């Protein structure tokens, strides 16, 4: 604390902060890299004055004092400049002289992070590292009555369908009578989920698109990416790569002027249209792109003025009920592409998901339902929404699938599950568990950020500053000084890496189960968990 400082209620010491900077004076070369790179200016050059008193041992020599000055790193303690633990300082330090460390005790910053009456908002995900999906085991291992397959030698058909799949009798009748067939896309079951256009930096966005294009065109994997709300770059809209893209529309309609104007010039139809009603990470909240990221380019693509925050309201202005959203939005979006493109809604997992699903089953144009569970990540939300709102994905998805089975529509409306897939790195295992509980495919966003671009966030409240455009890795920023840190080519490489690794892990799960001809959607007899009530709830085996 400075000599003239005063102690106020929100005065904090370094001990009160969740992250403390450990700095080693002996190793530090005072190069300034750490202070330059810190996204939140939590550290600064510190000037430390030291008084030394020398007392001689004899009677002749008088005690003396001297002053020395040394330079080093000082951690700031005001709530606005609290360290976020991103460890960029360690990353750039040439001598390993600095690193953040988590406070072992309970921090007091949490009580003061609402300065000016503003509750804390942040990016990231729920601060809870536990996950049910990680506890699910695959127990139906093929042994002697049905030999296990060889993940490396056998061929596996794991593609899934996105679109309204007609019941066999109806499908044949439509074909006989040359009637309208709902569009169906055969896609890879792991979809890069919607992340708002403008939330991601140009290099991140470009890297994802390049990776997806490479997977499709070089590796033969029909991977799809959802744009998130906010539109799509005009050149991509008019390119052949659009067929790998799921365009998202939400209540803000951001970017849709650009998309609609591009329709006559589109070489390819998009893969699908996703109508976003909710996000698992901040259910019931609308989308939000904060002003920090609304630069000239993003503003132009979204069709808005520069530097204004862009909230999408939680309700569409035109919709007051599920009937209206189904009847109007799905119909309108289908009509825009001549009923050649699947249109499906995405909702936050909620105890009322079944009501939505039941309505969709009666709508011939509904091409599926994406359900986003509470563990999903987001670029901007209130802390309370992220930590305390939402519904776990597992039981929600299972209820929906079981309900579809009950009414005989389990092959007709594909369910796509998201929210916490790969939360702790177990992407393939989590995805396979959801697929065997009834998902036709899974959507993932956070894992892609972490694996493809090195996102530093965690469920221990690390970093999580995606909302203010200061992403230290250049993933979620529109500031060229920051996003030039991220090489789009390297992101593309990592996207390909992670998909190929996922594919191998998925085969390593399917092969011992004896499944290779089709994705084992709803193969619940293969799942087990060591908690009785969970097993009962999900309709899977209780194993101990």
């Amino acid at each position, binding site marked *: 604390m400075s000599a003239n400082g005063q102690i106020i209620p929100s005065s904090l010491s370094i001990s009160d902060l969740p992250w403390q900077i450990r700095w080693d004076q002996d190793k530090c070369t005072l190069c300034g890299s750490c202070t330059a790179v810190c996204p939140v200016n939590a550290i600064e050059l510190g000037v430390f004055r030291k008084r030394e008193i020398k007392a001689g041992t004899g009677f002749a020599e008088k005690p003396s004092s001297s002053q020395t000055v040394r330079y080093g790193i000082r951690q700031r303690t005001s709530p606005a400049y609290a360290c976020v633990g991103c460890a960029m300082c360690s990353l750039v330090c040439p001598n390993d002289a600095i690193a953040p460390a988590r406070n072992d005790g309970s921090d007091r910053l949490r009580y003061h992070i609402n300065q000016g009456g503003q509750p804390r908002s942040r990016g990231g995900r729920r601060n809870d590292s536990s996950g049910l999906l990680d506890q699910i085991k695959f127990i*139906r291992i*093929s042994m002697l*009555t*049905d*030999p296990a*397959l060889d993940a490396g030698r*056998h*061929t596996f*058909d794991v*593609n899934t*369908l996105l679109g309204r*799949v*007609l*019941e*066999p*009798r*109806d*499908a*044949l009748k439509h*074909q*006989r009578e040359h009637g309208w*067939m709902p569009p*169906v896309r*055969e896609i890879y079951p792991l979809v890069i989920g919607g992340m708002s256009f403008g939330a991601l930096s140009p290099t991140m966005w470009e890297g994802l698109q390049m990776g997806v294009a490479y997977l499709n065109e070089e590796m033969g994997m029909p991977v799809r990416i959802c744009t998130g709300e906010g539109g799509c770059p005009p050149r991509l809209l008019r390119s052949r790569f659009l067929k790998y893209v799921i365009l998202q529309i939400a209540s803000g309609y951001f970017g849709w002027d650009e998309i609609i104007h591009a329709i006559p010039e589109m070489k390819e139809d998009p893969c699908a249209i996703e109508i976003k009603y909710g996000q698992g990470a901040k259910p019931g909240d609308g989308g939000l792109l904060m002003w920090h990221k609304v630069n000239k380019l993003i503003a132009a693509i979204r069709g808005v003025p520069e530097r204004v925050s862009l909230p999408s309201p939680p309700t569409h202005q035109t919709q007051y009920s599920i009937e209206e959203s189904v009847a109007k939005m799905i119909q309108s979006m289908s009509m825009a592409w001549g009923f050649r493109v699947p249109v499906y809604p995405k909702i936050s997992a909620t105890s009322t998901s079944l009501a939505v699903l039941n309505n969709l089953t009666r709508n011939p144009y509904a091409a599926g339902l994406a359900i986003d569970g509470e563990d999903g990540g987001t670029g901007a939300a209130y802390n309370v929404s992220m930590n305390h709102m939402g519904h776990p994905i597992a039981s929600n998805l299972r209820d929906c699938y079981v309900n579809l*089975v*009950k*009414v*005989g529509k*389990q*092959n007709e409306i594909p369910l796509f599950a998201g929210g916490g897939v790969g939360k702790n790195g177990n992407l393939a295992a989590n995805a396979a568990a959801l697929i065997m509980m009834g998902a036709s495919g899974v959507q993932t966003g956070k894992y892609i950020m972490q694996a493809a671009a090195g996102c530093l966030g965690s469920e221990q409240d690390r970093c999580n500053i995606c909302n203010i455009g200061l992403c230290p890795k250049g993933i979620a920023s529109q500031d060229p000084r920051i996003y030039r840190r991220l090489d789009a080519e390297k992101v593309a490489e990592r996207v390909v890496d992670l998909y190929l690794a996922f594919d191998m892990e998925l085969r390593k799960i399917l092969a011992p*189960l*004896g*499944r*290779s*001809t*089709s994705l*084992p*959607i*709803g*193969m*619940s*007899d293969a799942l087990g968990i060591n908690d009785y009530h969970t097993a009962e709830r999900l309709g899977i085996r209780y194993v101990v």
Partner: protein
Amino acid sequence: MCRLFAVTSDTPLSPMKALEALDAMREGHDGSGVGLFMRDLGGPFATIKGAPILSGIFTDAGLKKLDALMMDIGFMTKYRMGIRLPDTPPEGTPSRDIYLIRAYDYPRAWENLAEEEKLRRLLKVRLQLREMGETDGDMIVFSFWPDVVMIKEIGDPLTVGRYLDLDRHGITARVIMAQGRQNTNYAINLYACHPFFLEGFATMTNGENTAFIPVKEFLESRGFDGYIGFQSDSEVFVHILHYMSRFLDLPLDAYKHIITPLNDATMDIHPNSRMLRLLKQSCRRLIIDGPNCIIGNLPDGTLFMAQDSKKLRPGIVGGKPGIWAFSSEVCGLDTVIPDRDKSKDVQPMHLDMAMVGPDRKEVRVCRQTDRLSRQA
């Protein structure tokens, strides 16, 4: 592992022939059970082709219940085959009161009904009997259909055949399907024993259907009351065959396209690619993953064999005009048709379906890469 044997012959054969073939393959099965399906019957049933025959196992109390119900509906016994049993069954075979094979006259009230409606009602009666029997375990009903007899029991196939003295009763058939194992994937239950029968269709399977649950859930939710049971993962094969034929009106060669669709690259160059893609998508929940060798029989008498897409189970077809056999192993074939031209034996591979029509002139092998014989 199961061992399967099926034969189709111009001359009616004794079911013991099929059991002998199973016995030749005894190293390949554990002798835990036997299932027999007989169609196009000879012997005493040859003259009453149109009369529905009830096959099952009953206790004395169950028989009383059966008689009361059949009287109530108006069925009159036309012919009854009594199987007299020795006092002690072979080891491992439960003691039963009555193995029933009984032909009935249709009720008077049904006389003016269309044939299709009569058959539909037969299914309802069978399901009703099955349900009644499940509460007290006093009735097990395998089939109730014209010109069809089924017998299932726990124990070694040949021993059970001799115990039931099948030769003595003069029961013969032109189409016989036999399987030599009790269901071992789930609890032992005679309903889980192959072959399975539904409205004129019958199948038996070697192997385990790893995609059982999604297939079962799809079938159960079709709203057809005949799709019940599922004590065995192999029961779905007869249901899929029935669904394909009755509800989708597709020819037999489409069966393989439903259960093991072609991969995309092969499908793209297929003459019926649009149709096949439609089937692959809309019947996605009926895709099986094997390992399975399926032998099946259609109401017109056609016998066929199909393999899963990885061809992980043995299967061979051979014979001569007038008599053809479908067997898990060649030794089973040798037992029943030793004088055939063995160079003409066929082992259907992962894309093949071997079939012998009711004329029994030849084995036709259709490949999934061939044009469909007919579209819906």
